[in-house]
């Protein structure tokens, strides 16, 4: 399948032609059209029953016009002739109100975008009954262990395109399936989640069994004193925590002096074993292979041997710095610039079990929650552990422990990595999905303990 039925290439060209005609007639110098369409469905369960079950069909048309050195954007979800003309008019009216910006670039020229095939018909055609049966089976696993389950089973298809009056036509479509489950006893809980473009790669029963096992193992949690511990962060915890720092790998953020990398690029900031790339074409990655202006994404070596090297660079930032754009810009106009969103952290060769076996005393963390930045330059983050936190002693899991609050400097964390597992596609709730390993980290700072 070369295109999505939700938004075909022909649809895109026809709508763009209408927008271009209107824009030219109204005196625009250039016009950029972003189109999107999605069909998504999510079956939600709690207390071992489906309680919310939804579907959403949505389209959008977003038009950016340029007049002189002025630009602005207007968006709508209506695609009829009147709506297209009206949204072009609105965009132009706002643009003409804007201050002239001599640094505003002409729109992007066409670049070669290599296809990234992440569409699976079986995922797109997932029915309410398919999802309900998958949920019922997972609930069965929880009930079999006398546990109470809550979670989601979702599947969706989306398509998007960016076209402009300089000839750019970037098109992408994909599918995404997710399954997430929390199972609970009266004093413990366990959690597992997976996401993939192909729903057949999301094994709901295996996830349910993993959550159930964690909830069973963490019954009767002990309260440990807060302090500095060796921790093993499972991939979802790594993703949710480290995901907070990648918006700083941005040329605009560094220029604005709001990035923790300001004055630190090229320095050995992290441990020598840390390697992080941005690579939209990685087999476990997802998302469009072009940015908000339709510029092709190129891979970035963000961190090599502990040294932050490359950062994302939009066309505007690239011109300011005399570099080539990397294809990570956000749709214009914006204040943030750009960010890498296809993170691939290189893993190691220690399995999670080996990491645990090699730990005399430490804490195993399944999942982190409500992560927020305390200090933007030292990159201190706070948050909580959740749904499966365990004491490790003498190389084995001893018991569940009450959840901790952490206040942890991420620079120090990446200096204190003692072991890495092979990387996998990790899914959490606090950051975008990424390819990440489990990490064993020394001197992790738990500052408080909560009541459960």
């Amino acid at each position: 399948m070369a295109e999505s039925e939700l938004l075909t290439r022909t649809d895109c060209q026809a709508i763009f032609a209408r927008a271009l005609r209107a824009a030219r007639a109204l005196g625009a110098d250039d016009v950029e059209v972003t189109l999107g369409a999605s069909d998504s469905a999510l079956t939600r369960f709690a207390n071992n029953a489906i309680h919310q079950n939804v579907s959403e069909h949505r389209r959008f048309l977003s038009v950016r016009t340029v007049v002189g050195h002025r630009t602005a954007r207007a968006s709508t979800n209506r695609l009829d002739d009147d709506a297209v003309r009206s949204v072009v008019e609105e965009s132009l009216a706002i643009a003409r109100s804007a201050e002239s910006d001599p640094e505003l670039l002409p729109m992007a020229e066409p670049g070669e975008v290599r296809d990234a095939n992440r569409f699976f018909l079986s995922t797109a055609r997932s029915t309410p009954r398919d999802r309900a049966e998958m949920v019922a089976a997972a609930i069965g696993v929880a009930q079999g262990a006398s546990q109470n389950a809550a979670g989601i089973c979702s599947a969706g298809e989306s398509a998007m395109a960016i076209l402009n009056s300089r000839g750019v036509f970037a098109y992408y479509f994909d599918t995404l399936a997710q399954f997430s489950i929390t199972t609970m006893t009266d004093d413990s809980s366990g959690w597992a989640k997976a996401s993939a473009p192909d729903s057949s790669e999301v094994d709901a029963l295996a996830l349910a069994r993993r959550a159930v096992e964690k909830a069973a193992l963490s019954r009767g949690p002990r309260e440990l004193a807060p302090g500095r511990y060796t921790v093993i962060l499972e991939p979802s915890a790594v993703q949710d925590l480290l995901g907070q720092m990648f918006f700083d790998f941005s040329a605009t953020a560094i220029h604005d002096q709001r990035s923790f990398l300001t004055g630190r690029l090229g320095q050995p900031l992290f441990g020598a074993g840390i390697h992080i790339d941005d690579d939209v074409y990685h087999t476990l990655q997802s998302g469009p292979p072009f940015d908000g202006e339709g510029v092709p994404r190129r891979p970035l070596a963000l961190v090599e041997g502990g040294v932050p090297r490359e950062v994302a660079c939009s066309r505007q930032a690239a011109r300011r710095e005399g570099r080539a754009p990397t294809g990570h810009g956000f749709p214009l106009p914006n204040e943030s610039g750009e960010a890498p969103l296809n993170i691939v952290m290189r893993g190691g060769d220690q399995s999670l079990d080996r990491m645990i076996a090699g730990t005399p005393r430490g804490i195993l963390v399944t999942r982190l929650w409500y992560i927020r930045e305390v200090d933007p330059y030292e990159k201190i983050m706070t948050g909580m552990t959740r749904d499966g936190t365990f004491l490790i002693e003498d190389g084995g899991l001893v018991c569940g422990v009450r959840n901790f609050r952490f206040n942890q400097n991420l620079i120090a964390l990446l200096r204190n990595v003692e072991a890495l597992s092979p990387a996998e596609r990790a899914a959490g709730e606090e950051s975008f999905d990424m390819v990440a390993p489990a990490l064993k980290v020394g001197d992790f700072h738990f500052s408080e303990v909560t009541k459960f």
Partner: protein
Amino acid sequence: MRRIAEQALGAAAGRGVSYADVRVVECRSRQVATKNGKVGGMSSSESLGVGIRVLVEGCWGFAATDDLSNRGLEAAAALAWEIARSSAAAKKKDVRLAPEDRYEAVWISPCRIDPFSIPIEQNLDLLLRIDTELRRNSGVTLAEASMVFTRERQFFASSPGSRIDQTRTTSGAGFVAHSFKGNEIQKRSYPNSFGGQHQLKGYELIEELGLLENAPRIAEEAVALHSAAQCPEGVFDLILDSSQLGLQIHESIGHPIELDRVLGSEANYAGMSFLTLDKLNHLNYGSEMVNVVADARLEHGPGLGTFAFDDEGVPAQSTSVIRDGRFTGYLTSRETAAEVGLARSNGAMRADGWGRLPLIRMTNISLLAGSQALEEVFDGDAIYMETNKSWSIDDKRYNFQFGCEIGWEIRHGKRARMLKNPSYSGISTEFWNSCAAIAGPEHWVLWGTPNCGKGQPEQVMGTGHGASPSRFRNIKIGTAYGG
């Protein structure tokens, strides 16, 4: 909108449902932002669509679409029905709804100056003048200012016969001064973080905020923080300004009282609540001076949680949440009210646009003003904190930690010295039970929190929180940087 609603409702009801409601929602918004003397974001958007909710054989189904053709509405209604039928594969009991009357109503929120009638040039001119004022201070390395306006008209129609046409206009504005020096990034926001102040008002809000007048002070404070002392770690009396207290209410009272969390609906994502059903009318949530209401009525003020009817057609109400320190009430839906034996929902179901299912959301959750003069609140020694910088709380809403942008050491009721990187932490009920003073109504402000996330798929909602500066005894301070 009525035509679309009637057609969608007819398509849903015609399939044999025990209940159906539809919401046709038209939303318009404008965002204008500046950064370091230049235009940042500059955009407008509009959206029109319908959400159809049906109850079939005791199970919910929901489908939303922006295809408003006859075929599109029929297909969405059929899908909602099919989804509801499929839910029976994992059903424990039939959904029951607490009774509610039928209403025919048209309601438009007060809006003295239509924000969409104000030329964008005027929005930009004010933001750029603020920007100039901020960057007049050479220590400011990044100046950001923004405005956002929304108007949402919703036509609600239900199978029992309600027809409610409701229009809400909200406005928001604020600015931030960042200062990078040495190994520190400091910032100050006005009048609050999260894009400033947001209320159910028109452009008159922007004129009331005193944005330009406060820019020099905010810039000066952002730069001065670099040379301020680090906030000490220890146990002290804490005084919070009303905006930070608003967020404290949001996290440690507003979310725990959501009855869907209590009953487990959010266990996989937002979490549950320590406020189990046995605690209603028994738990000493706060000290005796703590009185908190959930009030969606216009009489409470122009909050982001103010409306005439919620998104399942229940009229706006005022519910006592904490009375004289005792926990007295949850936020409910018709379904959860029936589940715990309440006679009626108190009207807290709200949806993020046409595409999402209504969930229990905060309305205006406010700490009622106290009787003390501001001098009494500040009397003696304490640490005073203003404007939220970081916020985090566990998934049952016990343990929280907040960071603020600026602090002051209070000695003998006066500001003795500025403190940087202030933070505090605690357990929700212990914190509210330590409340020792609440300033009077002249210091009470109804703050807007525009970015409250909940649900799967996630929904973002605006909530209101009224508070006046208050004092709390023996609070753990400095945790975030401690250890």
